[in-house]
């Protein structure tokens, strides 16, 4: 069902409505564009190009589905095709996926210190630290974190934006967040918020901390494995 069906109006009117609704997401598009291309001028270009593509293909948008996700998907594809230096980034991402996950689990004590520091505003520069830590993530990881936490998309929507399986979204998001936590931990120690003895428990060799198969767990529990 396209917009003409819903509004029962002339094409111009339907298109105007579509434009108006799309423009409501310009902030989301811009901040995600910044995350991808870094420079504001490039981000603005990317956003502009995205809107042009969107309006050219607006008839393919299925009304009632998530317009913001649709727009971000167009933007991400545009970014991949145009801005990302194909070879370099792909290699970097592949390397990240292949190596064993070196990111461990923060101890309870550390988690508590950091939570307290954040929520009691003992750590005034935490906002900068979080921004820095996020910007240091690889593009796709950062995009996932922002889509999940800022744009509040479901895993399925994120998977559709990025064109990858839901399982990949889960494991990468998991990994991205662990990376964030570790970085914050390091900065907290440097700032004297967390004690120097507080540590991150590195996983034992081979014991990667990716999400496990809950379905398998449930089958084992019920003895039907």
């Amino acid at each position: 069902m396209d917009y003409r069906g819903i509004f029962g109006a002339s094409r111009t009117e339907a298109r105007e409505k579509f434009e108006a609704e799309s423009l409501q997401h310009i902030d989301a598009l811009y901040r995600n564009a910044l995350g991808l291309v870094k420079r504001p001028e490039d981000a603005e270009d990317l956003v502009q190009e995205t809107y042009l593509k969107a309006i050219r293909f607006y008839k393919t948008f299925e009304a009632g589905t998530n317009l913001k996700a649709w727009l971000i998907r167009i933007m991400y594809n545009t970014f991949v095709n145009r801005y990302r230096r194909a070879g370099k980034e792909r290699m970097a991402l592949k390397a990240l996926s292949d190596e064993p996950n070196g990111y461990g689990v923060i101890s309870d004590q550390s988690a508590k210190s950091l939570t307290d520091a954040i929520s009691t505003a003992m750590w005034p520069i935490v906002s900068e630290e979080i921004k820095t830590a996020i910007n240091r993530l690889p593009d796709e990881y950062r995009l996932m974190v922002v889509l999940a936490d800022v744009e509040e998309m479901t895993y399925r929507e994120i998977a559709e934006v990025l064109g990858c399986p839901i399982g990949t979204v889960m494991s990468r998001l998991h990994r991205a967040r662990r990376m964030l936590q570790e970085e914050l931990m390091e900065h907290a120690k440097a700032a004297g918020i967390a004690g120097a003895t507080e540590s991150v428990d590195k996983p034992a060799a081979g014991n990667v901390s990716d999400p496990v198969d809950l379905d398998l767990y449930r089958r084992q529990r019920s003895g039907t494995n």
Partner: protein
Amino acid sequence: MQCELVEKHLDAYVDEELDAGTVVLFENHLSQCRSCQTRLAFTRSIKRQVKEQFSTVSAPESLSTRVRAELAKEPNEPTEGQGRYTHKAVFGMSAAATVAFAIFGAYQAFEGQFKNGSTVAESSMAIPVFEDVVDRHTQDHLLDVQDTEPDRATSWFRGKVRFPVRPVQFRDPSVRFVGARLSHVRERQAAALYYNISGRKLTTVMFEAPSPLWSGCERAVISGRELYYRNVFGYTVPVIQHNNIAYAFTSDLDRSSLLRVVANAKVP
């Protein structure tokens, strides 16, 4: 369910992507495990900070203007979608979605229910509100106001939150007001008021709530008073809504004592 398993799926829980069956297992474990509660608070804290930090970024005015101008130039008859952006390519639901990522088996069924505004969605949306309320009780923070007079708290909150903070009056004489602090529930401003009742803690969280929170709640009638409450992390959280303000209570008391105390309280 073991801590290790919970830890590995904490993200999915916080992102509200777990199916209801798993959520039950999770919350059973969480209600008994301080360690995982700590981790949960931490994971939530980071998520909240990320959102706060990045939500403020907005597009420059000049960009909006330029985009509008460019869009206006586009011909009225856009070209038909080429292969790349057809509906199936953009939202290949049938292809991608049904591939067996059945780690959480009931994902798809529940996703339909949760994401399109049904009553199930309402009660599931209320859950994080209650979780925040419980967090206010279990977290250990400095108080903004420490006094034995609840009325002092009312004047302190004036100008700091959008709604008048008039504490409930507990008829139970063993309830003693300890202090209060400015807080939040989800994105809303809130006032957290702390009491001591015979050595046990009792917390009231007040926040604006124009729409009812009691879908998904249990209902009890005590002393002729109808009370709605929810079980979160092993705590019973009764809630009273009056004049668009919600009063949510958490306590270390057992459920029947807490319900009795709340049923006998006067809401201003």
